[in-house]
């Protein structure tokens, strides 16, 4: 049993977005790994990508002559414009996010708590320069906020935890966590594995203890 690659996780998220929103969804993909999801959206999914620096219907990354320094995404990567795009200023863009108009937002995370709290902006380490960007707005604003991360950190410690030990980004804001070792729901009912990949239910329970994940 092998774990899922980042591409496989991104494909799973893309599939679930398309399944949940058959008529198309408005989606924000956080900077870093979540941007991979765009590459896996099925043709005709009708998904419209939002970038918080003021654009809807963002296209793929720009290359060569298509690069325009005035057209970048939230990660400051040059991107392209799809047909039906629109531009708006930052207050309007964040009003859109904070007002609950995005269907799905996918974020990276350091930790997610069983109750759905998110920690993804700051390690709290001494000397670290804090930088939050739009993470707190996205965390509380989208209709569904999903996380894409590895289930364990480099030291092997679980990133789904009883309580976040890193500084919080938002309280009770996460619906679902896509990881290399499976997909999980978190929230009031605790942790529930929707599917496992590369880990047995027994090992999962042992490594996430004292959490007691249920397995669908």
């Amino acid at each position, binding site marked *: 049993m092998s774990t899922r690659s980042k591409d496989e996780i991104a494909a799973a998220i893309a599939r679930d977005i398309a399944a949940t*929103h058959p008529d198309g969804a*408005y989606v924000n993909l956080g900077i870093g790994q979540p941007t991979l999801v765009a590459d896996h959206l099925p043709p005709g999914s009708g998904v419209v990508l*939002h970038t918080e620096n003021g654009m*809807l219907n963002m296209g793929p990354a720009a290359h060569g002559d298509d690069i325009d320094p005035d057209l970048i995404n939230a990660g400051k990567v040059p991107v392209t414009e799809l*047909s*039906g795009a*629109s531009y708006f200023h930052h207050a309007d863009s*964040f009003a859109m996010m904070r007002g*609950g*108009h995005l269907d799905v937002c996918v974020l990276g995370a350091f930790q997610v708590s069983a109750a759905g709290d998110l920690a993804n902006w700051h390690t709290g380490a001494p000397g670290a320069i804090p930088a939050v960007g739009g993470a707190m707005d996205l965390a509380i604003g989208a209709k569904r906020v999903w996380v894409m991360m590895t289930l364990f950190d480099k030291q092997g410690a679980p990133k789904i935890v009883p309580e976040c030990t890193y500084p919080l980004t938002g309280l009770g804001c996460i619906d679902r966590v896509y990881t290399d070792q499976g997909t999980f729901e978190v929230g009031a009912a605790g942790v529930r594995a929707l599917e496992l990949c590369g880990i047995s239910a027994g090992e999962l329970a042992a490594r996430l203890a004292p959490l007691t994940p249920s397995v669908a």
Partner: protein
Amino acid sequence: MTARVCADHDAAVAGTPDGATVLVGGFGMAGMPVDLIDALIRQGAADLTVVSNNAGNGDTGLAALLATGRVRKVICSFPRQADSWVFDELYRSGRIELEVVPQGNLAERLRAAGAGIGAFFTPTGAGTPLAEGKETREIDGRVHVLEYPIKGDLAMIKAHVADRMGNLVYRKTARNFGPVMATAAATVAVQVDRVVDAGGLDPEAVVTPGIYVDRIVSAEPEVAA
């Protein structure tokens, strides 16, 4: 979810439940979504709360909706006009409730609903009868009043052109409440003069991005077919 072009105005307001709060665009007749209002009259939802700048002019549009007796309450800034006889009669006979809101608070409370603002402090209305019973606070030496969002179940607005993604542009001062109401309702129905394909509007000039729009109906049926 992305907007849908409806076959007719009835489809654009289908499913409106009794008791709904309906945001109605327009400032006087400019930007008034008359065809959607007529469809809502046919649809028959009752016990409505209507949020609009005015309370109807003459006998058409919003005035015709009020005349059905299916509006329980009007929230507006300026009900009384030379030609607001339908509202006047209902109000004087005690058959309709009225909440008068300063026009800027009306716009800002709608924006707050769309922008996820829980409440805001404004100096507008401080010390006046329209702030009675409301929480106040002095900020920077000035009395402010705490105001809350106004959310709609349905918004009915009029725009000039939509593309098939739901992006909208308006015409002149008929823009008025349309863009802000489009952000503030669970379902947003828009009547437009015409629909164009995606790419038919300048992305720099889009006023209402398609994310806010659910149902579009065009005055030119052959285009909306």
